[in-house]
């Protein structure tokens, strides 16, 4: 039994079938990178894993427990599976500290003082404890994204989903976010990333999945995918990435 098992998952938006039978397994402490052209279903797959989107066929199991289909306690699932979005989605009317403590106090019923102490410890770790009382719009994009990651970490998830979290950032701010992810990977956080940062994927991933046309087209260790891709479509994708100077 694997940590996360995705079996033959189909997802349709109206007539548009975005996921056409995804199969994927993730083991604990793995970092799995989803790569592929825009619209291939990377983000949709992540949103299905923590129940933000309903799937039409197939199933997803976490620790052997089925987390899709009717009757699943999605609020409970989301305590275990965190997600970070491309556009940060911090709550603009709350301070950084309130953003981080909201879910622990309301969902986990953690005492306010404890939640704050924990949030400050996390902020200190990313060097932003002096921004605890700032509002999101007073932070740079990279700082906002790191706060968003910390907000997800405050729930102590067993799985973290990261949806193109550096795509909306200025190039010089990308590294601070990636450094945080490196650290999390070293500590053994299980993560699934949808990403266009090929260099990062190559360096950190335990497994790289190339998605195309709503299925996992090719998967394997990063050396194999990036240096010796088997499928023609994977080769095309990678060569266009190299042409663009992104690898």
């Amino acid at each position, binding site marked *: 039994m694997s940590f996360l098992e995705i079996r033959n998952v189909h997802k349709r938006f109206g007539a548009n079938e975005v996921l056409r039978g995804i199969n994927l397994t993730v083991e604990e402490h793995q970092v799995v990178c989803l790569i592929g052209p825009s619209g291939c279903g990377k983000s949709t797959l992540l949103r299905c894993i923590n129940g933000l989107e309903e799937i039409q066929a197939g199933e997803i199991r976490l620790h052997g427990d089925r987390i899709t289909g009717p009757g699943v306690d999605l609020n409970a699932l989301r305590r275990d599976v965190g997600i970070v979005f491309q556009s940060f*989605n911090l*709550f603009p009317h709350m301070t950084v500290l309130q953003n981080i403590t909201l879910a622990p106090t309301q969902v986990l019923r953690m005492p306010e003082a404890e939640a704050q102490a924990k949030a400050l410890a996390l902020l200190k770790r990313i060097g932003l404890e002096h921004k605890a009382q700032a509002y999101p719009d007073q932070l740079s994009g990279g700082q906002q994204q790191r706060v968003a990651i910390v907000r997800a970490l405050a729930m102590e998830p067993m799985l973290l989903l990261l949806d193109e979290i550096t795509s909306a950032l200025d190039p010089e701010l990308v590294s601070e976010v990636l450094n945080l992810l490196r650290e999390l990977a070293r500590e053994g956080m299980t993560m699934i990333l949808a990403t266009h940062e090929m260099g990062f994927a190559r360096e950190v991933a335990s497994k790289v999945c190339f998605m195309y046309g709503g299925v996992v087209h090719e998967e394997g260790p990063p050396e194999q995918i990036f240096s010796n891709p088997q499928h023609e479509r994977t080769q095309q994708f990678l060569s266009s990435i190299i042409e663009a100077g992104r690898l």
Partner: protein
Amino acid sequence: MTEPNSKALRRRQPIPPKDGLGFALLALILAVALWLATGWVMWLVKQTMTTNGFQAFWADALLVLFTLLPAGLLWPAVRGLGQARLARQALQSENLIAARVHSAEAHTWAWFTLGYAGALILFLLFVLFFIANNVAVGRTFFQLELIRDSFGLILQAFWVNVVIFLFAGFFSLIWGLVVAIAKLLPGKPAQPIRFIATFYTDAFLSLPSIIVIYLIGFGLPLTGIGFFRNLPLEALAVLALTLTYGAYMAEVYRAGLESIHPSQWAAARSLGLSYGQTLRFVVVPQAVRRIIPPLLNNLIGMQKDTALVNVVGVIDAFNQARIIASNDFNLSAVTTVAILFILITIPQTRLVDRLVERDRARFRQGS
């Protein structure tokens, strides 16, 4: 290269400005005419005062002052004319730059004259209206003794309007939010609730508030149900206004709730917050911030509608004033009510303006 419009051949001919002499002359003539007209109106006022046996030094002094004031109009008019002449001279000596400067000045001064002249004309018309038919208008609406004598009663009755407004405002703000949330409930099981909420807002948006007040104020006590029979009329008025304005508030709340981007919902739900928690901590606080100006506008509208409760016999300021008016055959007490409404509404209107401006400034910042 015979094409007349080709860029190489085209030379731009300088365009000389108009000197503005005609315009400035017009402004001057208008200023002089208005001065004469003011003198005439003030002379009429003086005559009316004499026929009514009113004689006071301060009044005469005021009249003289008003007669002298329009002389101020001559100042911009004459300056405009001077600038126009300079512009004409500059044009003759083919100094285009100077001509443009003087011409622009001349036009500005002439417009200045026209603007103030327009305001003065309105003022004179109002004075004529006021003293027409031997000060009939003045007596009907502004009889000072009556205003003074009835002021205490009116103010006391106005307190009833204020109390009705405060209660109905408070309740409709809450009720509107409840209805808006009901209208936006997701899922098939909530369909009947959504339908009722939609029907309620549709119905009360189309009903004139005076009819709702009439039906509730007279109708509910008639039903003989003990609870309603023992309620004071004011409470029924509050209920009617709450039901009417709750529908308006609900529409504003709904617009606010729908304006919150779905990504905020996704972020909150993905942290494990329930639907209700997401509404309470994330969506409603952001929505309310955006819709404070329209909510306040609705409150101002409701404040004015508190005068409608007189149809069911609540002794509010308007009703009290009508009683006084029919006793004295004079509307001055109603004028008092009008002034009171203006006095409490203007600060709120300005507040709304400031909030809207503040929101706009924040939006420009791009936050």
